[in-house]
């Protein structure tokens, strides 16, 4: 379902990135990286937005001919970026939202591991398997 799922740390360094197609990993990395500007922009504290109703889901960051890129930011400024194939018209935004929610839970679980130091790349195999499942669309 998703082409690429990535988790980016507070300092915009990648914590985790997986792609459906390994050959396109570099290209997708470039795209995800370029999407961070918009994420940062959307995270800017805007006076208009009320703090309590802060929406973690950022919506579509940008789209290209081939991909749609969605963003999500946790309260701790961890960014989730999911890249979806543009051709997949059946995919509804709610599903993307659900993917982010699942991903967030997985991430929280992974971070709860006492052997994980915040800021390190995520190397947990269990986490990886679960994320692959989300990417496949059967989480």
């Amino acid at each position, binding site marked *: 379902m998703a082409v690429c799922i990535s988790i980016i740390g507070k*300092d*915009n*360094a*990648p914590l985790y990135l997986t792609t459906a197609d390994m050959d396109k*990993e*570099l290209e997708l*990395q*470039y*795209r995800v*990286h*370029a*999407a*961070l*500007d*918009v994420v940062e*922009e*959307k995270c800017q504290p805007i006076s208009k937005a009320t703090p309590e109703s802060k929406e973690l889901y950022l919506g579509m960051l*940008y*789209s*290209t*001919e081939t991909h749609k890129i969605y963003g999500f930011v946790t309260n701790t400024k961890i960014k989730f970026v999911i890249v979806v194939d543009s051709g997949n018209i059946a995919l509804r935004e709610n599903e993307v939202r659900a993917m982010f929610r699942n991903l967030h839970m997985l991430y929280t679980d992974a971070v709860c591991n006492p052997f994980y130091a915040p800021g390190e790349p995520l190397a947990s195999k269990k986490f990886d398997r679960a994320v692959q499942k989300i990417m496949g669309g059967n989480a």
Partner: protein
Amino acid sequence: MRANVSQMLTHGASEPIMSRPDYEQNALHHGCLLVLLRGVGPSKPRSLQKAFDKVRRVSNVKINDSTGITRDIWVRYIHDHPVENNDWGDFQTHRRLLGLITIGKFENQTELNELCRQHESLKVRYSGTLYDSRAIFFGPSSAHVAENINSAGGDQHFTDASNLTIHDSVNLNSNSVTNHCPRLEEEYTTPSNFKAQAFFYREQDSCSDLESHIAEFIHALFWVLESKRLDRSREKVEKVSLLLAPFEKRDFVGLDMDSRSNRKRTVGRVTKNLADLSLQAGLVVDALGLYHSACETLRAIGDLLWLSASEEGLCSASAILLYPHLRESETLHRNTSLQDGPSPLRSTPEKWRASDATVKVHAPEHQHNSHPDAQGMASTVQMTSASSSCSSVSSLLTNSSTSGTPSSSSSTSTISAAQHGARSSELPSNILKPDELHGYYRRAIINYSKYGPAAIIETEAALKAARIMIEQNRPLDVAMFLQNIFFINVTMSEPERVKRLEVVSDLYHQIGYRRKAAFFQHLAALKYVQQGNPNPDWSQTYRLMLESFSGYLLSLDPMEVIDNAAGWPALQIDLLQGVIAAARRLGQSALATRHMTFLLQTQWAHMTPTEQSELSVQLQNLSAQCEGSPVPLVLENGTVIPPANLTDLPYCMDLVVRDLPAHLRPQRIKIVKADSGPFLFTPIHLNSMDRREKKKEKNKISFLWVQNNLSEVTLRLRNPLPIELTVSDMRLLTNGIVFESLPQTVILQPHVPTTVTLHGTPIEVGQLEIQGYSTHALGVKSNCRLKNMRGRKFPPNYLVDVIPALPRISVKTSLPQTATFSQLASSDIVITSASLTLYNGESSTCIVTITNDSPLPVEHLEISISSNVEQEVQKKIFIIDEKELQSKLPIQPNSSIDFTVHIYGEADFVCPIVSQRAASVHSNSTVTAALQADYAGATMGAGPYSLQYSTLSSSGHASLPSRVSSPNQQQTSYNRRNDPNNLSFRSSTSGGAPSLAALSLPPAGTQGSTHGYGQHVEAQFRVKYSGGEAMQQGYCRQCAISFNIELLPSAQITSWDVLPAEIPSQFYLVLDVSNLTAQEMSLNYTNNKSILIEAKESCRVPIPVDRCSLEQVVAAREAEYAENMEKDLCYRTQLLSFSDSISKLCSEHIAERVKISWLLAGTDIQGIASLHGIVLTSAMIDLTTVSPLEWTVSFQNTPVQPQSEIVCAAGQSAILNVSVSNQSAQPLRNLVLTIKFYQDYLNGMENYNLDTRVAISGPSRVSIPLLQKHAQIQHECTAIFFTPGRFKASIQCCSKPQETSTQSARGQLLEHKMPAVQVSDIVGSAASYHEQQEHIWKFIPPIEVTVIEQ
């Protein structure tokens, strides 16, 4: 506004569409006059750049129009303009090229002609739209005018100068041109077909009037434009023709142009066109109104394309009023882009946001209702009426003046940007609000997208919108507009696509979207060289990739990247590899090497080992073409690429600054006494000031280096690569004083830590800062500074103090060197060694040569000796003449001095050898023989006696196991057996007998016991030396010579005894001397007597020695007593025996007098054995000292001589007269004189039970209570022998100590311990020596009486 909408109304490719968009355009350019500024001619020197700049500076001209209103006219200079774009001039008038300026340089007439030709051809090219043109020519400087006139211009026919001014549309004052002298235009003439106005300048001319000329030119353009505008405004509605966009030409063929909608279309388009012209002519407010009305008209009939154009125009007009400062920022941007921030990584987009805070002032004004629209409607109603009535522009002006004074509004647009916040009130009411611009642009773009041929218009509109959004600080909208650009389906060439990417990336940069900008830059970079590109431009790729660095958090400085440690490693590696590839394609091997070095240095941690080694090999290949060196590279565009150093290849694990070798280490000549006070540890630092200062400099090395002295630093390096790594030219990087570093090459095996020592010589005196080292690995020279090495606890540098040069010496000895150095302390300073084997008692000399190897004289030299033997012994072994040595100083450079060391094999010769078995018969016989010979010589005929005695004594005790080594100890163990009666010839029960008896030699060939005798003396001669300036500062060096002396046993005195001599003033010292060498030894024991001893054999020698006088004894005793009293006072212990002092005295007495010299047969090895340290028992002492009793014995009235034979007959009485006189200084008390006869069976048995054989008349035992000094006592008795035989008489005088008196004396002493002891007491006590101990004085030898039958 999706891309697919644009497919709706596409037309054939044959349609004239704009070939390429003008990416630089912004909204404000709608109001500018387009002027082509071109350099012509073959050469375009830098000097012309000045002229270009001057022309460009004239971008704004204020012109008073016919009604007296000041018009603000803006000019946009472009360098290139496609002719097709002019076709869109009806659609948007600012696309028309109105003016032409060429700038050229010529050297001669031919070149001038060419310039003119080019100018003319340009004119022809744009003839459709061009209003006017100018040419600026730079001629040769006046210096070489003269030649040119003759050569080139001489035969040229001069056209009249008026030709130049013919075309002056505005009457130029020609004298400004003609000011130059000599006038260029007089020297050179333009061709006749050149019909433009030209300005001639010398090359170095300041062109001061150029600006005014250009302003004049713009005036000209304006007036033409103004006339066109007026023409347009005065046109009758009925007469106007339909304006068409280039691609629309076919659409309206055959249509009824008079239909209502088409009429409206025509009117709307004309209104829009007029608005465009008004905008260009500086009538912004007018233009606003016209645009509104055009919008209204066109919207009504659904002419979407032109509606979009009108809306865009509306936005532009509003933007001109809202953001007049954008014009200035255009030039400003150029400046900022030139001087990039020092650190692109740290420049934050926030800066940009903050600077535009003023724009947000408009935010509260936002109204999201149709109110402004309604307002606009109202004004357009007025305007439509105006246009429909074909009113003049002036009427329009009056119309619009109802809402605001046009004069003031146009003037406000020129006021500075700082005031624009307060300006909103002065703006015309029909202006678009800043918030509305977004919507208008959006709509316009959507509409444009419906027309395929208008794709370029759409692209440009999107860019313009984005720029406006940037101004409004709405980055998300910017992103949206920019993103949209890529959906526009434009058939354009690859370079154009790339250009588009670059422009977009630049805009992203402006809103602080560094990553997006970098993304597109990267994309553009790849496009330049993508496959299928016929002429790939690697230099552009390289430039773009380098520019995109900041977006990926890369900096050109590797240390910055490492410190940041952020960013996406995968992308960074990919980007760097791209840069390397680009640099390589460009043929810039230096850059490629640099970037590869950078890649390895910064991304090492993010690469797999395989990648690491692959890239390392690549680097090696790259650097083979161009060696990398740590110098900044400067690109053509001025970018400086800082050096990249491979600090961790090889990986330095630690770096240790080495002290000099111990023997070269500088020391203080005088060691300052540590003022530690009386405590071992004290927290009080008396010189704490110094110490604290030292602590401040943590990197300070505690030791010193010496000028001109090779110093070293040890590195431990690890090669992280799986391949062998050759690191060549390793040197130390230093700062401070001059340091000559020696290069070092090392080959590192994979993953094995290797220790490398780097050498160098400090040339100057002062502080040296060691910053790191430089390497040459993988073909790259790197400066590896400690401060740049991460992950290890290195200080940023090490500081070493270098002191002035010290001399350096080398030392040689005349003795052979040893293989092993001594185990003495500070053996590290030993530079040479000497070994010597000496027999005990042998003397030798050693010549030590000190050579000064340095260019400095040795002015100070000091020698001290330390060894493993006691100081006393050491002094005996080594003797140096210090004075002689000092007199030889100074040692001049490269010269040497010698000095002699005398070495003596000092040893303890008096040492009985431990025997494991009884003395062999053989050895006994030897001893006996020796003694016998001796005695024979001395006594003549007394052989049997002596033989008997010696045999007796030695055989009697030889069977006893003897494990003790000194006679003193033997005394205790054998006391029991040594009954005084046993030894007739002895004066006491001393251990003399066992000591003789103990003599035994180890069996010949038993090596095990012999090797133990050798003694090793290890000594160090420490030489402290200094000279030159360093000596003034108190530094010196210390080196040492190690002496290894093996002392072999030579002659050894294994046992000794004291025998009375024939004369009472002498005694015989009987020594058992054994030859422990392997050679025959000749022993010279008295003046003229010598004896040969076989190897490993021993013999007994008697040495007559003078007795120790009584005076000496008394003196020694008194001295010791005094000492004892002192000790007693201090320690309150019991008095020690007085005999110690006497024994010492006697021992010394003997040692002084007896010197046994030996010579090894067949060699010249000789030595002296001293008897130093001989220990005597008290019995021996009695013999050694002069006896206090003098015996006079007569038998049958004949005085008894020693060794003499007395014969008497059995049954006859014989008178034995004994007289004793006291020779000592003190009176003797309680003496008992005893006379006993006995028979000696000569087998060790002595029979005292002679009651049946001898009878003594008269007491055999006489008590003498007191014998005064010099007094004599006589005793006479008579003996009758009953049977014949051989009898012996032992006569002895025994002093029994008086218990009471001794006790009282002791008690007295005890009492007097505390108070001062009186001298009389001491003397008294000393005098009572003989009373305290039991002494036996015998008459020696015993009288032998042979009784014969009568």
